[in-house]
């Protein structure tokens, strides 16, 4: 038995399934290999986005030469094996297992939320489980009506663990767990207290039966009766794909498919935020003031005509500049584009603004100046493949849960090192290899300190910098001008902690840096942006920006303005400026 070091391994395995040969990567499961061949093996507990469980035992297959049945979902393939996925013996084993699963399972399908989209129902139907020779004493377990937004009926539970795994592995909340023993084993909170979690409802999405259900959706309609419209959630910048289920003119629930960009994972806003659409306080028709100044319901033609008429009057009297347009940060990019097009082209004004200016925009300005572009450098799913992740100034789950979910994947499944720098503890801290709790407002110093530590440790990627950036010397000189003592004085973080964080941040060579609202809205950033908004500011600022946090005489060396990291192909002007 070897003690250290794996031996060299083949990277693929070729096997035979039901007489067909298939080659798959080593580590793939029999289930995945069968899927390559288009062979469907029944499963109940398998869920692609989480680790395998092997609980339901429905996916049993026969591997030639192995005396017992193996479960396809969690058995890795082996070169040269021959697998049978369907035989009378396998059918009997699957059927009997289902019969056991149905022992004392409630027969409340008529009023069960999952009816029509229940994996247990479908599997029993397809395997024609119409009898049950097993019996046991009936003991009903209490239904948790006392949870918010969710209801849990453990009697319907088949213990597939999908909900628990999604909660732990995707959401990182670990709010529910498998508790108790034997036939009384249920999914519950560990304390037994009512559920206290993120209420993202991803467990509901994962539940194959009617065990975990959405309270707002209960009795709102049968799943197959809704009109389903695909969309993108606009509650934050994660861009999760969602499906609106609409009946009788109301959105009755929001779901998300595991096949989408966000793998079916939503947050509480995405899943339950649709309540806003059904709010009685929502404006559902245009209102136009009548002669006496009272708002009256109006048709769209009338309303639009009134607006157009007034706009024309104003423009005629005061020119286009007399009109200003304020857009919503909640609308899509396309809608924003059309809005500004309308104001510039039709109305003839450049007075356009949006709440977004107080959000990401200030950061865009600075980032553009430093890097030559204002957005993310990679699609967000690249985060999952990062070898190190640095999160600065953001509680990701609060700000943009889709990012948090991906950071959790990187840290837990792909061995990424995680550095979290924030002025307060964040929801992903438990995954952090280093947590730098800096003084509020000292973000610039924190970043300078990290860069300083990175260079002090000799961790910079010289080849990349030479190829893609200019001004390293200036940056280094600027960083040299600040001492670690100053950084520590400003941030409260020691040099040792910064060096450790820098080492972690550089591990593996693929680092994702994510910054959030605390950086964007730091006083420091606001100063920079205000200056940029003044006529001609862009030119003036370059190379001589000031920071309130810097000691007198140090202005010229502010690290953020030292000019390294500039990339080629700089567009002439910012798209929104």
């Amino acid at each position: 038995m070897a003690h250290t070091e794996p031996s060299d391994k083949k990277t693929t395995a070729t096997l035979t399934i039901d007489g067909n040969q298939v080659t798959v990567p080593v580590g793939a499961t029999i289930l995945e290999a069968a899927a390559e061949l288009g062979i469907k093996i029944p499963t109940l507990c398998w869920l692609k986005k989480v680790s395998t469980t092997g609980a339901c035992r429905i996916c049993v297959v026969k591997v030639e030469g192995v005396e017992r049945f193996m479960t396809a979902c969690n058995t890795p393939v082996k070169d040269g094996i021959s697998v049978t996925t369907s035989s009378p013996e396998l059918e009997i084993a699957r059927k009997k297992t289902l019969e056991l699963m149905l022992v004392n399972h409630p027969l409340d399908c008529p009023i069960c939320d999952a009816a029509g989209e229940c994996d247990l129902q479908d599997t029993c139907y397809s395997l024609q489980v119409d009898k049950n020779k097993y019996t046991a004493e009936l003991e009903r377990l209490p239904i948790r009506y006392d949870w918010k937004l969710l209801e849990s009926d453990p009697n319907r539970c088949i213990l597939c663990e999908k909900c628990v795994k999604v909660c732990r592995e995707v959401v990182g909340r670990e709010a529910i767990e498998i508790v108790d023993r034997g036939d009384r084993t249920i999914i519950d909170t560990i304390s037994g207290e009512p559920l206290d979690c993120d209420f993202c409802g991803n467990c509901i999405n994962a539940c194959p039966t009617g065990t975990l259900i959405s309270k707002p959706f209960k009795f709102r309609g049968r799943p197959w009766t809704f009109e389903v419209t695909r969309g993108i959630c606009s509650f934050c910048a994660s861009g999760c794909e969602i499906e609106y289920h609409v009946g009788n003119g109301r959105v009755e629930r929001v779901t998300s498919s595991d096949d989408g960009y966000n793998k079916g994972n939503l947050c509480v806003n995405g899943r339950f935020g649709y309540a806003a659409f059904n709010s009685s306080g929502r404006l559902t028709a245009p209102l136009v003031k009548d002669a006496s100044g009272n708002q009256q319901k109006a048709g769209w033609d009338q309303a639009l005509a009134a607006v157009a008429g007034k706009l024309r009057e104003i423009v005629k009297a005061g020119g286009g500049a007399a009109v200003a347009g304020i857009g919503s940060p909640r609308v899509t990019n396309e809608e924003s584009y059309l809005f500004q097009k309308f104001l510039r082209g039709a109305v003839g004004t450049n007075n356009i603004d949006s709440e977004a200016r107080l959000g990401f925009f200030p950061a865009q300005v600075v980032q553009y100046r430093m890097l030559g572009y204002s957005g993310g450098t990679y699609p967000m799913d690249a985060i999952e493949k990062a070898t190190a992740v640095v999160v600065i100034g953001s509680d990701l789950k609060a700000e943009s849960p889709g990012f948090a979910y991906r950071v959790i994947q990187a840290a837990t499944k792909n061995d990424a090192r995680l550095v979290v720098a924030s002025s307060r503890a964040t929801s992903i801290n438990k995954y952090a290899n280093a947590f730098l709790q800096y003084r509020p407002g000292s973000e610039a110093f924190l970043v300078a300190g990290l860069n300083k530590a990175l260079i002090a440790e000799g961790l910079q990627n010289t080849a990349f910098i030479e190829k893609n950036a200019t001004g390293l010397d200036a940056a280094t000189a600027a960083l040299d001008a600040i001492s670690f003592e100053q950084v520590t004085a400003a941030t409260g973080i020691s040099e040792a902690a910064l060096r450790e964080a820098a080492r972690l941040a550089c591990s593996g060579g693929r680092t994702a840096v994510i910054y959030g609202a605390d950086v964007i809205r730091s006083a420091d950033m606001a100063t920079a942006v205000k200056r940029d908004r003044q006529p001609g500011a862009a030119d003036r600022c370059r190379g001589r920006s000031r920071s309130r946090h810097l000691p007198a005489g140090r202005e010229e060396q502010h690290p953020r303005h030292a000019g390294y990291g500039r990339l080629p192909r700089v567009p002439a002007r910012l798209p929104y400026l």
Partner: protein
Amino acid sequence: MAQVVFSTWGRNVVDNRNVSGEPQEVSFKLPVAFDGEKPLRAFMGWDGIILFDKYVDVPAMTAEYMKRVQTLYCCGRCTPGKKGTKVLMDLFQNVLARKATEADLDTVGDLAELLKNCKCTLCQSATVPVFDAVTHYRADFLAYINEACGPNTEKAAYIHKITAPCMDKCPAHIDIPKYIEEIKNYQYSEALATIRENMPMPSVCGRVCPHPCETACRRKNVDDAINIMVLKRTASDYERQHNITPPMQPKPAKGKKVAIVGAGPAGLACAYYLGLEGYKSTIFEALPEGYGGGMIAVGIPAYRMPRPILQRDVDIIESVGSEIRYNTRVGKDITLPELKQQYDAVFLAPGAHRSKPMGVEGEDKGYKGFLSGGIDFLREAYLGRPTGMGKKVCVVGGGNTAIDCVRVALREGAEESILLYRRSRKEMPADVWEVDGADEEGVRFEFQVLPTKIIVDANEQVTGVECVRMAMGEPDASGRRRPEPVPGSEFIVECDTVIPAIGQDPDLSFIPPDMGIDITKWNTVVTKYLPLKDAAGKDLKDGMGNMLSRSLITDCDGVFAGGDAEIGPLTVVACIGNAHRAALVIQRWLEEGKAYLSDQDIFDDLLTYLGVYDKNEQVPWLDSCDRANQNEIHGRERAAKGNYREVELGFSDSTAQIEADRCLRCYRMAMVAV
């Protein structure tokens, strides 16, 4: 009573129920009485049933067994296990309640077959004795079903124990399948909590444990053992690398206090478990501050056990409720009778730090370059004191200490490091990977040689060792071939330093002879034991030749002993297991005034004696995932002068998760009727 009435154990049916002639002779590695007193009437477990008493109510025992499996241990995490054992439990309860039918009994065989598809072996293995019972004691079941009076039996009490082959083999009885499953499920903190229930030094035993558990891993019967040790390291590394504060909360202080002699693995483990229960302890340690850990600190080099990581384990243990008084040698700075007087209980865990003599001409002459012993050399090197080592170092011995010495000699700047061992390489008691490690670092080996004389120059400075080659002789009475000197094969190994590393003894000189504490001829402390005997009347003994079930109290009331000084020099994990037990017994002593073993303690010993792992078991499984091994630093530079950087690198979390998924989770439940 020792007569076996009926047995299916090992899938071999012995039926002496209605024999007219001589009953079939069969014996099992079990005592005739569970605790030395209560007769063992029946044993039931994963491999069948054994009846020593024909009046045992087999249907009632079967029903009880299935009820305990289903309600206490079935994890509910697979359908056949969760529901199948429930159906079986209710079925047997119906038999006892006379509500079952004969046809119901057929369901047992049907489910025994179906439960072969279980996720793990707990419920599946539970069907084995149950099916045996229904098959071979059908008449008794039918008596319940059909007759008013039931079978002719006497009531029994039942004691059960959950185990697994690895868990049984681990001297600390860590719940290995549980922590491995938790790692598989990304629950590193939970895994570490599980480990800490029986192992308060996870980062140590995740690195330097000889992992006997892996020799009893059922996955070996498929391909290779699970890398249990490195998975333990993974859990402890995770906590440290994520700056997680250990979650243990000791119970409120209970007022009584315990003195512990020695801050080695045994002393620390005892302090930890007493601390969790609210008993403050004071540990008296001869070494200076910063060297807590006993033999781990001064006997295991830092390239195997990085000191800050060891210190973290020591600090955690101290924070749970103990104080370590360094630079305090019991017997010199404070006496044992003083401790006994000042504390409510005393635990002796001084370890085995005294090097054994080599038995070679010249070793007692005080030659320059002849060092007192391997363990002293390692200690001095670690303490940063002059070791007396020269440039060409010869270490004599074949254990881990000898290997540590040759490897440390290189790191201390030796130009040549030579190991002399009287048997062959594969017979070395040292762990194979340690020998390989020394090899890679450039250690020269001389196998099958016996040092006979120390050669010195006029200044009494060592210049070499005279050796004779050894060859295997004829098998002796026990069938073992012993190495014998080959006449005329004498030769000299040139060196300026000789380090004998052939073993250690406890130094028990601090125990005054008038305290009533007995000491064995191997220089270990005698502790009380249960009178467990086999059918032939012989005492049951453990692998070290000690009495099997010891309560660890000495003949002096209130004084307990453990660790190497009680067991004989062994391993960290053995000392920790032993000290954990001592802590439990000390607690009983402090609370009830009695030092005794619980049924669970005794059952642990019984199972270890019986053996839970069966290397001949056919385990049907697809061998499609190879064992993962940790990476290590390679090259001779790793042993360069002054380089004590850790050589082995542990697992990445994702590797650990895949490795953990190989675990077959071989739980099983044993139950006795007494």
